[in-house]
Each structure stands twice: as C-alpha cells, then as structure tokens.
C-alpha cells in the first residue's frame, strides 16, 4: 500500500451563509487546491460528503453538482452519507483509492446548508439519522440521544453537569482564537449551567449549533506529496460501526465504535494514545467529548469529566483537545465536519495554527462520530 499525505486544506467561514451547500463546497475546494499548489487538472477523483441536501435544499446528486460548481465537471465523484461522520468516511475511501494505486491526487470535501430552514425542521432532518421505526416515532432527537448517554455516564461514574459545562467553556475559549469559527465569544460556567434544558440533562450550551459551511482537503500519493512543502502523512484510518438502535447498545456510558476505530487506527500507525499531541474530536454535545476522550484511550473510563474540569484538555494543558473550538464553537455543518477536523490537524502539524497552535505538535488524531454513535472514524496524522 502506498503512503498518503494531506497536501492542501480549505474551509469556508462557518456560520450562516446565503450560498448553497454546493457553492460552499466549491469555495473550500478551490482554496484547498490553491493551498496544495497542484494544477486543478491533476485532481483525479472527488469524494464528497453532504447529509441533508435532499431534505433542506431539495437537492440530490450533490457530488457532480459540487464538481460542476467547482469548475471540474468531468472528474469522477461520489457522495457519501454517514450522518455527522460523512466527510471523514469520504476521506477514508479516498485514502484507500490512493493507497491502492488507482489515483495519485484526490480531493475530499463536504458541505452542509441548514440555517435557512426553521430549527424544528432542522431537528427533524437530523433525527432522520436515527432509526425510523423505533426512535423517530417516540420523538427522540439528537440532543435526546446524547442525553441518554449523559444520564448513563452520570449514574455510572458520577460525572456532573458542571464537568460537562467545562467542555463548553473550554471549546468556546478555543473558538475565540479561530477566525473561521461560528462563535468567537468566551462563555462562563454560569452561562452554561443557567441555560435552558433541551433534553435533560443537556442544556442549550451543552449543544453544538446548526451551521452552514464547507471544507475540503487535497490528498496525494507519497511521490507527489514529496514534491510539496509540508506534507502531513496519514498514519492510520479506521472506521467502526455499532448497533443502530439505542436500546441495543451494550453500555450507554460508552461508545464502543470509538474504542474499536481507535484501536485499528493506533495499530495501523504504530502509535499509542500517549504519542498523540493534539486532537480534534466530535464534541457535538459536551458529554460526547468526555466519552470520546475515554474511548480514545486518553483518560480512564469515568475520568473524562475530571480531565475537562482540571483543564487537562485545554490549550496549554497536557493534551489539547479541539483547539479549533470544536463542533461546539467552530460550528458543525455536518457534511463538512470531518474534512474540517482533518484540515485543523493538518494546520496544527504544519505549525501554522497561529494563536491556537499546539507547540511542537508532531502527531495528531481526528475522531468523527456519526449520528446515534453507530458510525465512528478515527485517523492519525504525522509530519516528517
């Protein structure tokens, strides 16, 4: 198998946009191609992610549309949909296309536009990522899914609402350092703890926002990547699934797909959790960050809340998590999120993250979770 590197990154500002998701992708993709310093004609395939195009924009067949709006209408392209893990899933398949020797340069990207529909419609569309037979009929929402996990984690380990609030405060503080973040304002513990319940025990400030945005990266085979400045190498990339039904999860206080994906990615990379310098992980809700830091092996099960409370996951702490602001403050355009997370880790490993730079970061990890924890991807990255 050939080695694969990230050689270009691009991302729109995250927040409210008047552009379609196709335009948002095309904008980010053109930035990524320019950053990679490759000829657009060198791109041999586009792996594209979008989730709610059909529901929110009456638009399917979004991958050739995105390619056309980019101005590369003849390049083969396929759309991926794995709920919130969509563009990380697209990334993994693009890596395999290059590693297998089929293509040398591949573009990966994703985009979402959702803020033009009312909040209750967006809540409904996102709930389509949970099961339509058992979960949607009883009115389970995505905050509800993670509330079930939060309650189980609190009952099993004594995790508190205040510990969860620390995650929100930290990620908002990081977001102030990211010019493209949706929220660039510090918040206090009190702001989080006094915000209204959305799905008990999760409150408004435990939840990431609805977001419009696009992100893209350019991947290349080793011989092409060697000709470029600062390649960031893909050391390992693994996907894992878990039972789709919340009632089928063996332990609601864990996300076993995270654990299995992490084990595979660490094994491929020849790394351990202790080797990781910087992490972008899927903090769609504050409890999700706590459970992920445990499942990825950074903290013992049940101590992720304590790690947040003690500041271990802050910039300047022992393992900075979500220096970009995470989904919580950077924003979460679900089809774009995986590509944006990979873009942030690439920027960190290049040493170009400015005020949010993790000094000397050499190994980075990206974790993206889809929907009701039934899909997880974990990838590891390193620099020369």
């Amino acid at each position: 198998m050939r080695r694969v590197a990230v050689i270009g990154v691009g991302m729109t500002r995250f927040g409210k946009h008047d552009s379609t998701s196709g335009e948002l992708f095309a904008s980010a993709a053109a930035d990524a191609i320019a950053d990679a310093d490759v000829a657009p004609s060198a791109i041999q395939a586009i792996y594209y992610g979008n989730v709610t195009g059909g529901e929110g924009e009456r638009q399917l067949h979004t991958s050739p549309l995105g390619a056309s709006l980019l101005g590369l209408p003849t390049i083969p392209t396929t759309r991926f949909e794995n709920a919130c893990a969509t563009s990380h899933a697209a990334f993994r398949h693009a890596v395999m296309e290059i590693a297998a020797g089929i293509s040398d340069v591949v573009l990966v990207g994703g985009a979402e536009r959702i803020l033009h529909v009312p909040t209750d419609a967006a809540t409904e569309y996102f709930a389509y990522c949970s099961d339509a037979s058992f979960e949607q009929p009883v009115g389970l929402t995505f905050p509800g899914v993670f509330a079930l996990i939060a309650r189980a984690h609190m009952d099993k380990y004594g995790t508190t609402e205040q510990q969860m609030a620390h995650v929100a405060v930290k990620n908002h503080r990081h977001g102030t350092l990211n010019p493209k973040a949706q929220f660039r304002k510090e918040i206090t513990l009190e702001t989080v703890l006094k915000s209204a319940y959305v799905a008990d025990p999760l409150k408004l400030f435990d939840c990431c926002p609805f977001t419009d945005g696009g992100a893209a990266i350019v991947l290349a085979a080793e011989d092409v990547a060697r000709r470029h400045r600062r390649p960031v190498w893909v050391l390992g990339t693994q996907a894992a699934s878990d039972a789709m039904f919340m009632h089928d999860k063996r332990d609601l206080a864990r996300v076993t797909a995270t654990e299995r994906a992490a084990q595979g990615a660490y094994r491929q990379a020849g790394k351990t959790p202790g080797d990781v310098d910087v992490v972008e992980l899927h903090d769609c809700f504050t409890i999700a960050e706590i459970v992920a830091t445990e499942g990825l092996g950074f903290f013992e099960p049940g101590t992720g809340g304590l790690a947040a409370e003690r500041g271990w996951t802050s910039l300047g702490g022992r393992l900075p998590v979500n220096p970009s602001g995470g989904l919580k403050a950077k924003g979460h355009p679900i089809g774009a999120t995986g590509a944006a997370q990979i873009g942030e880790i690439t920027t960190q490993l290049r040493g170009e993250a400015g005020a949010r730079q993790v000094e000397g970061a050499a190994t980075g990890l990206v974790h993206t979770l889809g929907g009701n924890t039934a899909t997880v991807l974990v990838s590891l990255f390193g620099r020369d």
Partner: protein
Amino acid sequence: MTDRVITLKGFFDEARAGRLSAIRCRSCGDLAIPPRELCPRCQERQWELVPLHGTGTVTSFTVIRIPPRGRHAEAPYAVAVVKLDEGVSLLGRVVEIPLDALKAGLPVRFRPLMTDEHVMIGFGPAAE
C-alpha cells in the same frame, strides 16, 4: 425471505394489540428486538418468536423539551431505554409518571400509544 418469524410490521401490529414480542435465537438463546436475519452473537439464522411480559426497569432516560417539527404539543415528554425482565431492551415514550420521578431502576410496564398514523412504544407505571 426465508423463515422470517416476524417483520417490523408484524412487531408493531402485535404491539398495537398490546402484545410485546421478541425473537430468540434457537442456537445461542440471545433475544433481539427488532427482528433481524442473522443473530449478532452467533450469526445463525434460526429464530423463534417469544412473547414478552412487558415489564422492566429504566436504564436511562431524558426529557425532550425541544421537539422535532410537529411534536410541539407533546413536549416536554420523557423517552427512556427500558431493560425488559427477559433481558432485552427497548426504547419508549414514558407516560403517566411525573417527569421528576424518573430515575434509573424505576419499574415500568409496556403500553401501546396510538398516534394518528402508527403505534408508539410506551411505558407507564409498573403497577396495573
């Protein structure tokens, strides 16, 4: 489709009539809801239909205060994962139990909840 002892439609038709059912693997004895082709535990394809008593205890729960479109009149409402006495779990809407009385371990009993279009899995107080 061969030897399918129950379908999703069959499961919900039974639930509408007040009967909760699961399938049991004839090979390893594992119980499952919803119906499926292969046993996730032993990969065999030999199921039998088993009736469930419908009683169990709450594993985890939440109170949904911001509902999806069309569900505003129902909010706030509670949703819980319930571990049934036979060992298999099921998600359902909790009714007739005060929201502040919900806790892990609370005994509950299945009841079908009719909506305009379909039946919804519900759980109420364990006492008849």
